[in-house]
């Protein structure tokens, strides 16, 4: 099967269950938004997929191959981490040269060209780079690898707006020409909302939903009006959250939009991905 399959994965840290029997798949050829609040279990799952930590139960398969301690997945998967795992005393250009030795699919020329676009000084040691440029270095490393699955864990941390735009632009251009799956784990939901095709939302170690972005945006909407009217409208519907402002009430719903009653003062408006995320994870927290 062409996918990253997460099968019944559980991970515990002492009394805390970071992942609780999580099962889903990242299909091949899509851009995923892997969303969740702090401590939701995103990084834990990414680290298990990348063989950095081990699941207590369950397994991860990459194109049907077990990801645990398996060099067969080496050329298939790369994970750009939020954490700095690179040797700090090596120069950027030496990092690129080592990556060329480590991976058959690393494009050295592309790495240097992309570094030029980001104005990254390749003669600097990794430790001498600012936090933003350290992130840029890690992004360039990931962008220069032609693997089937690339995971970006908080990819734009510390990047200014120009560099963020450049990254998304390069990412999309690559995606048009390559066949690969891109998984972006981030808090900056609105920023990736236009890029991602499918959303996986995780909270408290469990998958809350996996849905295409279009479907979510089509089925997610907000109803506002007087509290009584809103409550009447929402009866029997999938309400994921409320906001109240005086006598005005806003309800956030998922599902098919029902016709507003004749002469109703209710207003219907689309719900953006960030609001959907906030309300769903609030609900999970209740």
């Amino acid at each position: 099967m062409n996918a990253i399959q997460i099968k019944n994965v559980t991970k515990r840290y002492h009394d805390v269950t970071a992942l609780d029997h999580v099962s889903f798949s990242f299909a091949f050829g899509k851009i995923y938004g892997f969303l969740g609040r702090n401590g939701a279990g995103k990084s834990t799952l990414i680290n298990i997929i990348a063989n950095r930590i081990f699941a207590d139960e369950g397994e991860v398969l990459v194109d049907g191959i077990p990801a645990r301690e398996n060099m067969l997945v080496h050329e298939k998967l790369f994970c750009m981490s939020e954490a700095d795992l690179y040797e700090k005393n090596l120069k950027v250009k030496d990092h690129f040269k080592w990556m060329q030795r480590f991976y058959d699919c690393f494009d050295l020329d592309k790495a240097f060209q992309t570094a030029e676009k980001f104005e990254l000084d390749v003669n600097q040691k990794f430790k001498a780079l600012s936090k933003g440029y350290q992130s840029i270095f890690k992004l360039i490393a990931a962008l220069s690898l032609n693997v089937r699955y690339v995971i970006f864990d908080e990819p734009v941390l510390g990047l200014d707006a120009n560099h963020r735009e450049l990254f998304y632009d390069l990412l999309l251009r690559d995606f048009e020409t390559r066949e690969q799956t891109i998984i972006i784990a981030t808090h900056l939901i609105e920023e990736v909302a236009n890029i991602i095709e499918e959303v996986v939302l995780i909270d408290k170690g469990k998958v809350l939903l996996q849905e295409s972005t279009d479907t979510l945006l089509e089925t997610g909407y907000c109803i506002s009006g007087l509290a009584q009217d809103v409550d009447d409208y929402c009866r029997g519907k999938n309400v994921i959250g409320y906001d109240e402002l005086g006598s005005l009430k806003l309800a956030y719903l998922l599902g098919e939009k029902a016709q507003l009653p004749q002469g109703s003062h209710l207003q219907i408006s689309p719900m953006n991905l960030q609001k959907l995320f906030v309300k769903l994870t609030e609900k999970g927290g209740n």
Partner: protein
Amino acid sequence: MKKLKAAIQYECMTSFKYIWYFYAIQYAIVLLISLIVAIGTGSFDNIGSNCLEINSLIFVGILGALGYREDFRMLIQNGFTRKYIFIATVSLYLFISGIMALVDTIMGNVLHAVRPDYFSLYGALYGYHNVLINWLWLFLVYMAVCFLLYLMILVINRIGKTASVCLGVALGGCVLLVFALFRFVLPGRTVAAIAEFARNAMGFMGDGTVYHAFPVLTLLLLGGILGIGSFAIIRRTELK
């Protein structure tokens, strides 16, 4: 195999220069101390130190153990499995131990030839009869030290700081207990037999002859045990 070769090259090539930094600093310090003593006493007699390999032992241990965290993180980031990381690390130990044993064997023999009152560690124990055995012995000692410290750092990484401190205290207690056992509990004949076994294991026979093969086998066995222990831990090690 290509990937493994790349990981081994990474380990060895990024550590190679530190060997020469170490020797440059070590011999600069020896020279400086010698000059200070010579200027102070007005004579070059009775200056210099013996057993410079002790410094190398400390250095290979530090290089082997302290390099663990950075190299593990770097290689795991680049998709290598723990088995590959372990093989690359062992290759690094073979590489640095081999080079440093060679340098120390040559320097030990040259210094002893120039100044007969200088004794290398091996020379002081076994004499200066066989350069090849001298190198092999030093090489295996360095390897055993590397594996010992590698195992220690892996254990510390796995069990955490507090448990490591407790383990250290317990091990210290065990050492004291063993000394007490030898001194007060075990019969004199048993203690003598154990001491003789230890001497034999290092090649010193009861009749005064020296078997060089015994310390080689002992160190191989020790290195093997420590290496297997290290592998058993690293294959379960998680990124922290």
